[in-house]
C-alpha cells in the first residue's frame, strides 16, 4: 500500500493571507497614531503564569527549563515600571491543549497598556480598534458596556455575585447544560460553575452586531485586575473586562493591579490551586514582582486575540481559514 502524502498545503487562501497582512498593518498604524510603542518581548521565560487554567509549554534548554509565554503581560509591565510609557506587543503566544475551531495552541496576540487610564477608558479604545478592523464587512452599532452581574442575571435570573455553589449547580442541571451525575463527576468549584453557565448561556448571546464589553467580574475571577470594594453591603467586583462580537470572545483586559504584595499572594494562591488539582506549580516571575515593588504606574491593559479578529473580519467560520498552517499542519 502507498503511504499517503502528508498534507503540506496551507489551510488559508492567498486572499485570506493578504487580508490578514492588511489587518496587521492597520493594527500597527492604529497604535502608531496614538503614540503607543511597539516592543518585542521574550517568548521564552524562566517564569510562567501560574493561572491554573493556563498550560504553558515548557522548552528544555541547556540553561534549564524555559516556558513559552501565554501572554506578553509580565515583560510589558516591567517596561511600564521602568517608565517606558504606553506600549504594545503583537506576536505569538502559546497555550497548551486548546484546540478547536476558535482555539489554537499557538496564536497571535495583541496586548497593549495605557498609562494613567482605567479599564473604562481602555474599553472605549478597544471597541474603536475592533470596529476599525472589522469594517467594512461588519458595520457595527455603537459598543455597549454591560456588567457581568446584569448580563448573567438577565439571561439566567440569578445573581452571580451572591448565589452559592448549590444554587448555581441546580441552575446548570435545570438548564440542561449537564446532567446531575456529570456535574458531580466534574467537581467544579463556584467559579467553575459560573464559567459553565456563562460559556453556555451568556457568552453566545453577547456582541450581536456590535462590540459588547462585559465588565466588573466576580472578585474571585480577578486574575491581575484591581478589585473595587462594594458600597452599602454590595459585593466587591474585579475591574476586568472582556469584549465579544457575535458571541466570540475577542479580548480580556484589566485595570491593572499594581500592589506587589497582593500580586504575590494571588500568584501563590494560584499555585496552591494547581497543587490541589495535581497540576505542576509554576516558577513565579520574581522580576515582575520586583518591578511592581519598584512601582507600576496606574494603568489599564488588554490582550486581543488577533486570529479571531481576522476570522470575523474575513467572515470565516474557523481559525484555520485565516492561519496559513494551523496546529494540525505545523
Amino acid at each position: 500500500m502507498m503511504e499517503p502524502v502528508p498534507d503540506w498545503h496551507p489551510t488559508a487562501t492567498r486572499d485570506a493571507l493578504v487580508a490578514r497582512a492588511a489587518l496587521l498593518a492597520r493594527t500597527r498604524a492604529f497604535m502608531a497614531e496614538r503614540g503607543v510603542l511597539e516592543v518585542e518581548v521574550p517568548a521564552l521565560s524562566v517564569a510562567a503564569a501560574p493561572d491554573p487554567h493556563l498550560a504553558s509549554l515548557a522548552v528544555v534548554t541547556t540553561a534549564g527549563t524555559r516556558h513559552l509565554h501565554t501572554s506578553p503581560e509580565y515583560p510589558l509591565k516591567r517596561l511600564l515600571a521602568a517608565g517606558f510609557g504606553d506600549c504594545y506587543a503583537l506576536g505569538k503566544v502559546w497555550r497548551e491543549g486548546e484546540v478547536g475551531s476558535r482555539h489554537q495552541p499557538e496564536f497571535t496576540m495583541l496586548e497593549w497598556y495605557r498609562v494613567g487610564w482605567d479599564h473604562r477608558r481602555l474599553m472605549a479604545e478597544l471597541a474603536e480598534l475592533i470596529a476599525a478592523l472589522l469594517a467594512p464587512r461588519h458595520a457595527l452599532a455603537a459598543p455597549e458596556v454591560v456588567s457581568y452581574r446584569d448580563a448573567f442575571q438577565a439571561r439566567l435570573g440569578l445573581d452571580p455575585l451572591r448565589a452559592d455553589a448549590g444554587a448555581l449547580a441546580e441552575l446548570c442541571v435545570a438548564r440542561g447544560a449537564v446532567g446531575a451525575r456529570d456535574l458531580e463527576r466534574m467537581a467544579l468549584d463556584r467559579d467553575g460553575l459560573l464559567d459553565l453557565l456563562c460559556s453556555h448561556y451568556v457568552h453566545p448571546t453577547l456582541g450581536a452586531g456590535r462590540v459588547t464589553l462585559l465588565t466588573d467580574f466576580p472578585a474571585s475571577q480577578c486574575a491581575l485586575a484591581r478589585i473595587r470594594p462594594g458600597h452599602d453591603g454590595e459585593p466587591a467586583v474585579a475591574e476586568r473586562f472582556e469584549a465579544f462580537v457575535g458571541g466570540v470572545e475577542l479580548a480580556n483586559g484589566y485595570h491593572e493591579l499594581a500592589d506587589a504584595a497582593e500580586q504575590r499572594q494571588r500568584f501563590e494562591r494560584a499555585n496552591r490551586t494547581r497543587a490541589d488539582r495535581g497540576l505542576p506549580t509554576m516558577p513565579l516571575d520574581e522580576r515582575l514582582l520586583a518591578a511592581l515593588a519598584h512601582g507600576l504606574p496606574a494603568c489599564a491593559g488588554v490582550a486581543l486575540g488577533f486570529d479571531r479578529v481576522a476570522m470575523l473580519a474575513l467572515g470565516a467560520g474557523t481559525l484555520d481559514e485565516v492561519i496559513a498552517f494551523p496546529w494540525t499542519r505545523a
Partner: protein
Amino acid sequence: MAVYSTSDWKGGLKVMMDGDPYSIVENEHVKPGKGQAFNRVRMRNLKTGRILEKTFKSGDTLEGADIVEAEYQYMYNDGTFFHFMHPETFEQIAANPSAVGEGSKWLKENDNCNLLLWNGVPMAVTPQPHVILKVTRCDPGVKGDTARGGGDKPALLETGAEVRVPLFVNEGDSVRVDTRTGEYVSRA
C-alpha cells in the same frame, strides 16, 4: 487500552463511557477568556446508534474502546448465529442476530459485509450498499408493459427480502437492490 484526554478526542476516535463504546463525532473546545475550559462533545453510542451531546471539563479522560472495522465474508446461518469468515486470515466469527438486525435479509452466502467488532465480538453487521439477489417469486407482469415502467409489484428475493420491482422483472431474474433504502435499483 490507551487513555485519551479531551484534546485527543478527534472525530472517529472510539472511546468507552459508562460501559458502552462511543465514536466521537464532534468535539468543540469552549473556554471563557479566563477560567475553566470545557469540551462540548457529540458522540455516537455504537451499541444503540444514538448521538449524545455532552459537556466535559477540559483535560477529562476516557479509555479507548477496542473497536475494529473489517470486511468479512458471510458464510451461513446455523439457525441462531450468523457465521462470517475473514477473506485473508480465514478466521471465522459468529454474530448474534441482534448485531445483524434488519441487515440479515440482504445476506447472501459468500457476499462481503462490514463488521464492527468490539473486543473481538461483532456488534454491528452492515451489508454492501448494493447487493445482487435472485427473484424467487413474483407475479408475471401485465402484457404490454415495457422497460419504460408504469407501476411496480412485490417480489420475493432469494434471501427472503421483499422489494417492489418494475412490472417487467420476472422470476429467476437477478436484481440490484440498495440495502440502505431497501429499494430496487436495476436488473442485474
